[in-house]
């Protein structure tokens, strides 16, 4: 499912925070803004990380102010690598969650779950996975749902799983396939669901998933 090259390795929040020494925690000065811009546009997330969490709102402003989709894609990859929750980052990225620009769309879809655990992020990615006209975008939205929702609470995780199980009933075979793959990645299971199977067999397997979901909810 995640066939295209993805951003660099995930960096947990703890590494970001650990790298922030008190001396670097002061608000970003103009000189710091220039450093931030240079680092962000170079995709050098480690440099951005070294500037501290205060750099995130500035990074979101840089993203929104840029008219270049390639610059935005680069900054989105920085957000991805930082992996820190940020409402500013989420707002900026959500503006492009339906962009037709391929490189930007993929980076945004990957990055969203790493800057936010809000329900509307999950909903937007589920919507893209189920109904985007471009198969690649559907595929990568499923990939992001499976791998990159790193800040979810139990209730949000349940919402994500419900959306994936619901998508098993889609008419479009590719959507069924990527939703099943995402479920397999998240749970290690298929419940016998074959996205190319006969409708009756698919329906029976979806029934198994729904019974599992009820059990899952009951244990939250």
């Amino acid at each position: 499912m995640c066939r295209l090259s993805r951003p660099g390795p995930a960096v947990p929040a703890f590494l970001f925070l650990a790298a922030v020494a008190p001396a670097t925690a002061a608000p970003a000065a103009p000189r710091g803004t220039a450093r931030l811009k240079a680092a962000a546009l170079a995709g050098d997330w480690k440099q951005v990380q070294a500037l501290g969490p205060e750099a995130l709102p500035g990074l979101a402003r840089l993203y929104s102010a840029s008219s270049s989709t390639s610059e935005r894609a680069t900054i989105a990859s920085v957000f991805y690598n930082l992996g820190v929750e940020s409402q500013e980052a989420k707002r900026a990225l959500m503006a492009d969650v339906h962009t037709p620009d391929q490189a930007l769309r993929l980076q945004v879809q990957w990055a969203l779950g790493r800057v936010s655990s809000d329900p509307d992020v999950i909903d937007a990615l589920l919507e893209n996975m189920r109904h985007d006209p471009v198969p690649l975008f559907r595929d990568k939205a499923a990939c992001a749902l499976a791998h990159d929702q790193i800040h979810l609470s139990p209730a949000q995780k349940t919402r994500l799983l419900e959306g994936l199980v619901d998508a098993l009933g889609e008419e479009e075979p590719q959507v069924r396939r990527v939703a099943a793959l995402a479920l397999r990645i998240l749970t290690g299971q298929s419940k016998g669901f074959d996205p190319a199977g006969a409708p009756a067999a698919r329906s029976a397997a979806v029934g198994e998933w729904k019974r599992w979901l009820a059990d899952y909810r009951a244990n939250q």
Partner: protein
Amino acid sequence: MSRILLAALLLAGALEAWGSGGEAAQKPAQVAAGTARASSVFVSYSFDDDVATGPDTFAIYRYGKGHVRLSQAFHVSGYRSVEIRDVKGDGAFPELQGYFPLQDRGRLFFHFAFLTARPQEELNVALAGPRWFQLEKNGIAFWLGTRDGRLVHVSDSITRKLFVVEPFVWYAVDVAYDVAGGRYDLAVHREGQAEALVDLHDQPNAAQQPGSAVDKFSFVGSPYGDTSSVDYFVDDVVISSDRAAVLKPFVAPGRRKMFVDLFTAYRRRLLERRCLPPSGPEELGLDAADVARLTDDSGTLDRLLDGEPIAPAGPGALRSPALAALAEWSAGCRALTDGEAAAALPRFQRAAAAVAEPQGAVYRFATVLALTRLGRFAEADELLAALAGAADDPRYAAASAFLGLARGDLQRAETWLRDPAARVLDSAANPLLAARQQGFRADVVSALRGQMGDAFAERLAETLITEQYFYVLLWQQQYEPARDYARRMGERLAGAGLRATDWIERAGDASFHLRDLDGARSLYLQAIAGEKDYGALQALYLRLADVAFLSGDAATERRFREHYYGALTE
């Protein structure tokens, strides 16, 4: 009566009451090193005696600010337990990770006791298989932990609450895992109470995967989120099976074999015209139903995994593609033993075609052997090249030697080495040389075949002949010429700016066979200096540990072994 002794007695009594912990669980005892014995007890650690870490015992990971250490503060039996302390936000986690022979059928019993000082802090305990700690088949099979002060287990991919954990209280955990069914019974007893707090039966394993094999266990804090500052203690870890098994004796601290042993065993097997064995059940592509069909009182699966050609029998056996492939391979192996390579070859080819890569290497190795017997060296070369990604697999070395011996024109390898202009050792003239050094990726080989046309087969043979020559010398126990050849190859490649560490390592192996331990040590150190890959470095350091062991240098053996496997100390 002390509180600890009382706890130990009550825990032991509770175990007997539950009755599924097996004989071993009731009498935890240290596994004695150096003795071969028939037994179903794979692991038994009460942590009162010192146990060497290693690939056949356990590893201690002390990354970050936490620790894993022996402690006399709390214990159930004896006078010590293991303390595992994690530190939230330190970027790492400590771990006690243990190993036992792969269990892909039968009933496995896992017993341990734990006490946590901080129930609100997360801890995790797992049994896992060849896919390590992933939620999938042959990954995590059993998963217990604490979440928000409660004991939980993960069953059917759902975290299920058990009970509120009290601080500084020992709990005895007993798991009886039915591998083929992928289900387990779980009992948890609190110290001082005869009645179980948890008594669950027939629970689906972590990802509801029947046939999910296990070969390792782990005690850890919070490995996925770095969110735990847990401080907990573990005692009396026992893993046993209802199937009789023979554990080979330890030949050195923490390990039951040295790295050179397998090549020697495979050489003997090929001399007897027997097939090379599969590396494990996963290589055969067997699913749970297949495993169930092969599990019988005569040990069919065990014997198959040992390389004995047995045709799966019974209704439905041939409807399973994996079992049909196994049947073809078994019949092919018997034909090969009977000197009928022409009859064996199509069987091996059908078996290989039936199992998707990366599974089925055993069938491809068998095909190499049959092609070699038939003198179809170019085809054997190409198939062997496709297996070069498994060059660390001793079967690759044995198959290379087998092909080289049959080919019989290996003096070319010496001639090339003496010829400074030999194209085979010139990366500009021979693009396959660089491809070999990168492990012969299938797409690269395919592209080169297209580019090189008719010259491809000859160049491939030339490229492989150097290592075939080396392995033939090892096969013939001509260790000095093997060492010298490998050393000169290394020098030649290094002089041309090419990677030489594989050849330096081979020279070290030949020196090891010669018991030239100083020479082996020097060569391994030289290889280490040029190596960056973590896995390759680990293999080299463990070779150095073997060298030190045979040299009687216990301190150095321990230093190198513990560099990777850690040490369990107070």
